[in-house]
């Protein structure tokens, strides 16, 4: 992709996220949450329902009815899009959705595309009859049928039984410690304490709390794992020319890149101590004409604390094994030189794949982030990682995006 074709050609003009990360939304379906977020995003963009002529619905790694059965939520809102398409791969679904949306815009098949997602994740895991869906006893990581999942992988909470292998290997190869992981959790919580929408807005976290918290899947403690939320989120994207006529400053898409560890073999050892962020980031930064040090704020997919360590190392902010030191400098915390996850992240803020990252980056670049606003934020980095969790290899894909509030 050349600079001519992408950088500054498209912009986010509206974002919406349901205010439900703290309250939860028991009794609301994924469809309802997604529709609610879409309504908020359309209003945020200063548009009417008839302006939306394209819908991209984002979801988990693979179809998962009834937990995330939202085809097609747009009917609930009375939207009349020219197309309604689904993208998947969970943790990077928003980035995938934006890729698809920009192609529709480029081809002139739509003027305003909404990319959206909904998931009653908290309610599903706190159902009176016990956890349901991907979080429940049926399991889902064995669904591709290799047969290993039921032996105890699916029974372990969330994606921990896969992602924990990353931690085990990184600790072994680079000497990463629980104290290093704690830095990620503490940084996220400090930001959450500044964000009234964050799940743990009013709960402090100390290093002692972290180290005293129970192991869930050792070496992962509870505080290393992202939270669950009942949440919907939506993003309205259009061409840059159209974006400038909107009520709010456009947030331009500057670069988008993708990677996948499946470029190597399933069992390539390096797949357990890195993500494919270096590959994805190289494309995104080249397209944006920027480098990692020009980023003002980063909203990164912290499904587990270790992922932030991978990103710092694999994007080039520090060498392998040195992320702990980088984190201890305070750079990622409020007031630091490289703020990460100003919304509180998936660890302490809210969970909905990579959607909260894009929503928060947009708010930061518009100067709408209140107490947590990063001063003079012009360039933001977002990412997501996703895919199936099928042993021995999981969540292989990666997406990186650069957003900015000024034309290059």
């Amino acid at each position, binding site marked *: 992709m050349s600079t001519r074709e992408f950088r500054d050609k498209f912009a986010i003009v509206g974002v919406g996220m349901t205010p439900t990360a703290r309250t939860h939304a028991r009794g609301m379906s994924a469809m309802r949450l997604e529709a609610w977020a879409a309504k908020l995003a359309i209003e945020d963009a200063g548009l009417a329902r008839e302006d939306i002529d394209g819908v991209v619905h984002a979801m988990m790694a693979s179809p998962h009815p009834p937990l995330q059965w939202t085809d097609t939520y747009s009917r609930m809102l009375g939207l009349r899009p020219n197309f309604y398409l689904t993208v998947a791969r969970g943790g990077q679904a928003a980035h995938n959705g934006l890729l698809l949306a920009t192609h529709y815009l480029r081809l002139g098949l739509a003027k305003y595309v909404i990319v959206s997602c909904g998931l009653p994740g908290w309610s599903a895991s706190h159902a009176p009859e016990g956890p349901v869906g991907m979080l429940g006893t049926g399991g889902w990581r064995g669904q591709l049928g290799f047969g290993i999942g039921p032996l105890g992988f699916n*029974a372990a909470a969330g994606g*921990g039984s896969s992602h924990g292998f990353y931690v085990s290997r990184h600790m072994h190869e680079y000497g990463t410690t629980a104290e290093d992981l704690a830095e990620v959790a503490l940084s996220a919580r400090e930001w959450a304490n500044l964000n009234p929408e964050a799940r743990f807005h009013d709960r402090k976290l100390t290093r002692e709390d972290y180290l005293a918290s129970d192991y869930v899947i050792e070496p992962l403690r509870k505080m290393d794992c992202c939270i669950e939320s009942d949440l919907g989120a939506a993003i309205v994207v259009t061409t840059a020319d159209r974006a400038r006529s909107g009520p709010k400053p456009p947030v331009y898409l500057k670069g988008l890149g993708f990677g996948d560890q499946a470029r190597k073999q399933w069992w390539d050892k390096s797949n357990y101590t890195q993500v494919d962020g270096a590959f994805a980031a190289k494309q995104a930064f080249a397209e944006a004409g920027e480098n990692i040090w020009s980023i003002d704020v980063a909203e990164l997919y912290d499904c587990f604390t270790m992922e932030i360590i991978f990103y710092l190392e694999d994007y080039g902010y520090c060498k392998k094994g040195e992320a702990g030191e980088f984190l201890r400098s305070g750079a990622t915390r409020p007031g630091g030189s490289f703020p990460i996850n100003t919304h509180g992240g998936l660890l302490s803020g809210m969970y909905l794949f990579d959607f909260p990252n894009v929503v928060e980056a947009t708010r930061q670049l518009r100067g709408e982030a209140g107490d947590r606003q990063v001063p003079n934020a012009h360039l933001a980095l977002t990412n997501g990682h996703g895919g199936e969790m099928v042993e021995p290899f999981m969540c292989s894909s990666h997406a990186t995006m650069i957003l900015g509030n000024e034309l290059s």
Partner: protein
Amino acid sequence: MSEQKVSRLGPWVERPFPPLLPEIVPFWEGLRRHEFRLVKCRRCGACYYPYTVCVRHADIPDFDEMEWAPTSGRGTVFAHLTVHKVVDPAFQPDLPYVLALIELDEGPLFATRIVDCDPQDVRIGRRAAVKYHDVPGQDRTLPFFVLQD
């Protein structure tokens, strides 16, 4: 190491398992015969798990050039976790239990449970071997692993 510890298995072991992909069925059929099979390339002998068409050749081999063949069922611990909490109550009696990636002597990584051990004894690099568990009353054998001294 003193007295051999034997892992407890909760009632999960008795319930029906989800259906298998047809391509992985020969692996599970091998387990019934206490054979640890991997997918082997007829051309070069390279082993794969799960089902993968050999990548060592300029062309893409035909599927019938890959065959399930008995292998050592041995390897070393590549990564390991100790599960302390489960969302599935049928696993409660098993806690804590160890999940691991075993780097098989033939190359591939195999995800499994290490049983009959103290979780503290599991370390990366330790030798491990398959331990076949025939599920009573069912036509199914589970490929657990155990540490070797």
